């Protein structure tokens, strides 16, 4: 494999950074050169968070060039639209089908883009889109916070790495008492990939 580039986008508190840590570690254990770069502004809850993860035989830049992202993993619908230009035309978008309106929306000043406008924007960039009810699945499993791992599970089905590698990285990177739940969430996600 020459290279695979992932952009993870979400809102502070959604576990975007944990997901990118797991993804980077999986790449390393699979024998790739790996770089990961987090972009977070000033300390805050509820801000926009992105993380670049790159796998390859040799990776130079820690940042992925615009238009070169192979997989956009979006943890929130609006954030998908914010970063869609980073995707390689025809690349894959996996979206946690969940909306977190920013304060300007809840205060009634701005409008949260509707479902149709999201679909329209996506259709201009790629046909390879999957909406995943990750939040709902996570809640059914007993903890909304594992939605990020459900989405990772979906991603994993697109990549040629055995599930055991993912599961062992999850076991090493989440607190012991949450390992089983996270692994279940991962397996569930892995079965959902289209």
């Amino acid at each position, binding site marked *: 494999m020459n290279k695979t580039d992932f952009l993870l986008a979400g809102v502070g508190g959604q576990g975007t950074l944990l997901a990118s*840590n797991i993804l980077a570690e999986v790449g390393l254990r699979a024998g790739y050169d790996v770089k990961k770069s987090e972009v977070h502004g000033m300390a805050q809850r509820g801000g926009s968070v992105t993380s670049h993860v790159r796998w390859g035989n040799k990776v130079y830049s820690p940042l992925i060039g615009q238009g070169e992202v192979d997989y956009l993993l979006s943890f929130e619908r609006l954030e998908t639209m914010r970063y869609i230009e980073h995707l390689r035309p025809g690349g894959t978008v996996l979206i946690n089908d969940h909306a977190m309106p920013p304060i300007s929306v809840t205060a009634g000043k701005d409008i*949260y883009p509707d479902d149709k406008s999201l679909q329209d924007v996506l259709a201009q960039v790629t046909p390879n889109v999957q909406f995943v009810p990750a939040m709902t699945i996570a809640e059914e499993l007993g903890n909304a916070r594992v939605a990020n791992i459900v989405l990772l599970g979906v991603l994993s089905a697109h990549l040629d790495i055995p599930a055991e590698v993912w599961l062992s990285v999850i076991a090493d990177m989440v607190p012991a008492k949450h390992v089983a739940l996270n692994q279940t969430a991962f397996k569930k996600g892995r079965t959902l990939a289209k």
Partner: protein
Amino acid sequence: MKRLLSGNEAIAYGAWESGVRVAAAYPGTPSTEILETLAPMPNVYAEWCPNEKVALDVAIGAAYAGSRAMAVMKHVGLNVAADAFFYASMTGMEAGLVIVSADDPQMHSSQNEQDNRRYAKFARVPCLEPTDSQEAKDLVGVALEISERFDTPVMLRPTTRICHSSTPVEIPAERHDIWQKPPEYRIDTTKYVMVPGNALKRHPVIEERIARLAEFAETFPYNVVEMGGTELGIVTNGVAYQYAKEVFPASRTSFLKLGMTYPLPRQLIADFAAQVDRLIVVEELDPFIEEEIRLMGIECEGKSIFPMVGELNPKIVRDCAIKAGLLPESARVETASPEKPPLPPRPPILCPGCPHRATFTVTKKLKLVVNGDIGCYTLAFLPPQGAVHTCGCMGASIGVAHGVAKAGIQQRHVAAIGDSTFFHTGMPALLNVAYNQSNTITLILDNRTTAMTGHQQHPGTGKTLQGKDTVAVEFEPLVRALGVPHVTTVDAYKIKDVEAALRAALDREEPSVIVVRRECALLPEVRRTYKPLKVDLSECNACWACLRTGCPALRKSNEVYEKTKREKVEIDPLLCTGCELCAQVCPTNAIQFRAQLYSSEEAQDKR
């Protein structure tokens, strides 16, 4: 074994591996994690200092005492520490001293994007720059060896993108045994007492030292020539090297990667330039390497092609290179540009339950101009508060407010400064207010932590960097000792008390200080006490007084108040902490207090 480490983690491992015995810092993005990673490691002493100048003096002292030492700061921290930086260059030390200056191109979390390589040249101090985490680790040890060999402090200059990117690093198994060497204090007054007579003798020493370092740079193993095609010769450094390697094909391009960006190796560069058709410098921020090369009489191009402002990335480097004819049009990466509706932003805002919110609600109500400072509270300059009117650098608030008063402005100004920032550089400014007697009102916004950089301890918290108990310096006696007798303390969650204290201060034509105290709502012990409030929609008259506090936990509901046709307000239980600020400003008592919603036992939890 290789592990993914951020540049900051790697620097901590490098310091431990190379036998650093004392490390000192003040927290500052993007450098903070370096000391947090180093502190738990065995047989190394690390501390948070009140500011960067103190931290550098501490590190210099340790190096004077024969211990390898490290001082860590963000780029603007070196402004505070500059005095120490220059004398350390003049005196040299008895053991290695590395000064980590974490620069912030793009100002991800800073007030400017100054290029601290200028300081290296200014003070005749060599500057090393890593291109990934492995080098970030390795260059700490290299810096200490150079420091000892040339009797000079050494600057290690990562940037945000190096600090916060993770790349594979070979984890050190062994440690340089220098940390076991007993410290020894050698007295040498001609070297270490910088009075004019001695300093005059030291100046030629450091000029000669930098000339020797330039010789050393010719064969320095981290200055690397990578010959490929010779159409283009690219001189580059830091993370810009990675972008250049990604964008320019080796078939047409040769690279000179500079691990030491000051002083530069003249012969190495001249030889490299002679082998290529066109010499290009790819560097972030200032044309530092470019100017140095020009001063050698070698022609090169740099900022005529690439931007001086902000950080670079592969797209910027590629697009600029195509525009300048360095790459063919066919090198352009196809990108989609879909038509999008306007997207609501997610700007940084004060968190739900933030103890600063009530204070700025009051200053706005009283129409006070607020000279602000560096911390989370700066965010109150944004709507809906719009209540902070200046922010320049650490500790600036009090001096600026005093200057405004002395200029004869009749409207009262208020200085707003955080607890950690007050210890950092606020204290001398308050001393000045007392000494020169202005009617400046200083609000010390005491949230019991250094919040914005991620909750570091400071001299007021009673805990050290390692979490050990220590003295907790109290503001009230400190303020009185600085010469301001009028000091009151209020609970930041009690908006009426904040207002009463401010009104009392405004009635006085003397200096006064109000300590507005309440723990940051994101501290773990506070998180455990969250108790979300509720709106009784039958009582809400949609006046939106609560929304004007700017709390993200409040939102317009689907229910409309008949008389005005405006939406009533509801509370997001996942975001609300139960701080009760909205309940206090609600004129119809529609927002219920903890005591109304929970049993008295539960409600008390919070206090």
